[in-house]
C-alpha cells in the first residue's frame, strides 16, 4: 500500500514480519482468534498438520478450488467423449459385430477415465496455483524456530506489509495470547518491497 511505513532492523535489513511460537494446538487456535479479531489481514498460522477448526479461528473463506476442479473435470469428460466419437464415427468408422458406429454406450468407460485424469491433475496443480507454489525460498524458512514447524512447533507470523503492523504492538499482542517465543524475521536480501495484498 502506498505510503506504508517500511520497517528496518538496526543492520538495515527490511523486516518481513514477526513470528510467535505457541506451545500446542489449543494455544495456537486461541491466539489465531485474537489475531483475527485484532483485524490483521497479512498473516498466517503454521502447524505441522492441519489443526482442526483453524479455518474458523482464522476467519478464512472456503477455497474455490472445488469449482475449478469440477469445471476442468467436466472439460475432460467432454474432450474424452468428443475425441472418441470423432475417431469412431467420423475419422475411422469401423463397423464390427454389426453395431452402429455412433453408439454412446461403448464410449463411457474411456470417457470416465479421461474425466478422472483431468480431475486429478487439476486438483493437484490447482492446489499449487492457489497456494502460490512452487516457491524455492521464503524469508520465514531462514528462521531456525520456523524450521521446527515441520516437526512439532506451532507458529503464527504477521507480515510487515499488513496495514496494522507495528512491531511492538504485535509483540505485546502475541505475548498476551500466550506465546512462548516471539521473533523478528528479516526480508530476504535484495527482495523488492512488496505491496499489501488481501488474501
Amino acid at each position, binding site marked *: 500500500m502506498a505510503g506504508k511505513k517500511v520497517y528496518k532492523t538496526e543492520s538495515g535489513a527490511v523486516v518481513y514480519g514477526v513470528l510467535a511460537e505457541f506451545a500446542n494446538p489449543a494455544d495456537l487456535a486461541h491466539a489465531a482468534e485474537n489475531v483475527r479479531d485484532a483485524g490483521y489481514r497479512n498473516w498466517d498460522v503454521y502447524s505441522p498438520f492441519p489443526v482442526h477448526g483453524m479455518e474458523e479461528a482464522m476467519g478464512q473463506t472456503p477455497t474455490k478450488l472445488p469449482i475449478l476442479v469440477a469445471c476442468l473435470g467436466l472439460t475432460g469428460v467432454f474432450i474424452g467423449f468428443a475425441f472418441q466419437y470423432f475417431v469412431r464415427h467420423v475419422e475411422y468408422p469401423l463397423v464390427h459385430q454389426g453395431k452402429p458406429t455412433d453408439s454412446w454406450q461403448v464410449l463411457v468407460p474411456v470417457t470416465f477415465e479421461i474425466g478422472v485424469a483431468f*480431475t486429478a491433475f487439476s486438483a493437484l496443480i490447482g492446489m499449487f496455483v492457489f497456494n502460490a507454489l512452487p516457491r524455492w525460498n521464503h524469508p520465514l524458512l531462514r528462521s531456525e524456530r520456523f524450521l521446527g514447524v515441520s516437526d512439532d512447533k506451532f507458529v503464527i507470523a504477521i507480515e510487515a506489509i499488513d496495514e496494522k503492523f507495528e512491531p511492538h504492538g504485535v509483540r505485546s499482542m502475541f505475548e498476551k495470547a500466550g*506465546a512462548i517465543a516471539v521473533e523478528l524475521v528479516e526480508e530476504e536480501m535484495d527482495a523488492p518491497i512488496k505491496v499489501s495484498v488481501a488474501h
Partner: protein
Amino acid sequence: MSAINPDQTTAQRLAGMIPAPKPPRMDDPVTRDGSLVEDPAARAPLVLGDRTFGEVTDTVCGYIEKGPGRWWLPAFGLAAGVAGLMPLMILYLAITGVGVWGLNNQVGWAWDITNFVFWIGIGHAGTLISAILCLLKQKWRTSINRAAEAMTIFAVICAGTFPGVHVGRIWMTWMLFPFPNANAIWPNFSSPLLWDVFAVSTYATVSALFWYMGMIPDFATLRDRAALRLMRQGSNAERLPIANIRVDMIRARVYGALSMGWRFSARHWHTYEKAYLMLAGISTPLVLSVHSIVSFDFATSVIPGWHTTIFPPYFVAGAIFGGFAMVLMLLIPSRELFPGMKDLVTLRHLENMSKIILVTGFMVGFAYAMEFFVAWYSANRYEQDVFIYNRLLPPFFAVTGADGQLKYAPYWWAYWAMISCNVISPQLFWFKWARQSPVAIFIVAFAVTIGMWFERFVIIVTSLHRAFLPSEWGMFFATPVDILTFVGSCGTFLTLYLLFVRFLPQFAMSEIKNVMPQANPHWEGYGHTHGHAGQASGGAPAGVVHAPDAPKEGV
C-alpha cells in the same frame, strides 16, 4: 491409560513443553501392545508409547537419515539381481517371439495375462486404503496408507509390463494408444482391451499423483531437518563417501525441490485438504472402475467361464483381498526390521486388515459359488462343463462319460489350490488369536497371495484350454521363460519397495500427527488454560475444568 484420560502434566509433556522419561512398554494380557482395547466406549490409541510429535518425526525420518540398517544392502542386491531376470527374459522374448512362452493354439493367454491381473489386483489395496478409507474417516489408515500407496505404484508398474510385452511385436506396442499415424488407423474404442489401456494408465497416473501429494509435507519435513543440521553443523556436516559434498546439502536440495516450497501454512493446508479430499473422492470410483474394466476383457467375450456378469464386483473384491494380503506381507516384516514401527503400525492395524481379508475372502468365496449356481441355472452345457470337467473334478473323483471315457478336470489342482488358499485359509481369522498374531497373519496373507495368482490362472487358462469342439482341446504348460519372467517381476516389485523404504518417508507424518490425541485443540488435556502453563501444574483431572460447550473428543 493416559491417552484416554490424561492429566495436565501429560498434556504438557505431549506438547513437548516438559521432557519426561519413556514409560515402560505396555504388555497387557488383554490389550497386548495397548492397541487391542476391548471397551467399545474407548477408542484404541493409534500411536502407542505416548509419543510426542517430535518423536514421530524422529522415528520416521530416522529410517531415511540413519538408514534402515545392515540388512538393507544385501536385501537390495538380492532383489535387484532377481529383478534383472525380467529384462533378460523380455529381451529373449522380443528377439525370439511369444513362442518362448508356453502359449499354443488353444491357450493364447496364460501367465502373461495372469501376472497382469495378479499385479494390478494387488495394486488396488493402496488406493482403497488412501481413498475409500479416507472418505470413510477411518483414522487407522494414516499409518499404513503411504506404504500401501507405494506398493500400488510398484504393482501397477509390474502389471503394465505384461500386456506391453505380450502383444508379440513389442515395437508396435505404441499402437495401443490413439496416436495419429501415417496409415490413418485408429484403435477400436469399443474394445474392452482399449478400455483397459486407458483404465490402467489413468490408474497409474492418479495413484502416483495421490502418492506424491501426500508426501509433499513429509518432503518439507525432511528438507527442514537437513537445513537445520546444515545451520548447526556448518562444514562439520557428514559428507558423501565418494565426493566432497555434504549429504544434507543434497537432501535439502532434492527433498526441497520435491516439497515445492511447502511451509505448513494454515491457508495452504486448507486448500491442500480440499484437494486431497477431491483426489480421494475421484479415486474411489476409479479404483472400482479399473478392475471392473479388467474383468470386461473376459466378461464381454463368449468363452464359457469368462462370459459372466458377476465378474466386475468379483474382480474388485478379489483385488482388495489380494492387495491387503500384500500390504500385510510387507508391513509385518517391516515392523520387525524398523525400530519404533510397532508404535505406529499396531496390532490393531493388523487385526483390522485381517478382518478385511476375512470379509473380502467371503466375497470371492461367494463369487466362486455363484459361478456354479449360474452355470446350473443357465442350463448351458458348455458353461457347466467348464466348471465341472475343466476345473472342479479331481482324477480320483472322475466320472464315466457317455462314451465310456473317464472325465475329470485336468486343472483340478489349480482350482483346489485357489479354493484352499482363498476361501479356507482366511477362515483362520474367525479366531481372535489368529487375527492378533503377526505370524499367523503373515502365513494367511502369503497363502492368499498364492491363491489369488491361481484364481487368475484358473479363470484364464482353464476357460481357454478346451474350446467348444473336443478336437480343439489342448493343454498349457509353462516354460522356464514364463516362470522366470514372473519371478523377475516379483524381484522388480521388491527392489522398488526397498528403494522406497530407503529414500522416501514410509509414514504420512503430518497425517499421523493429526490423529494423535494432543493434535486436537479441544483435547481434554489442554483444558481451557490456553497456554498459561503455570496454572496447570496441579495435575487436576482435565474433565472437571471443561466448559460445557467444548466438544469432549478423545482421538
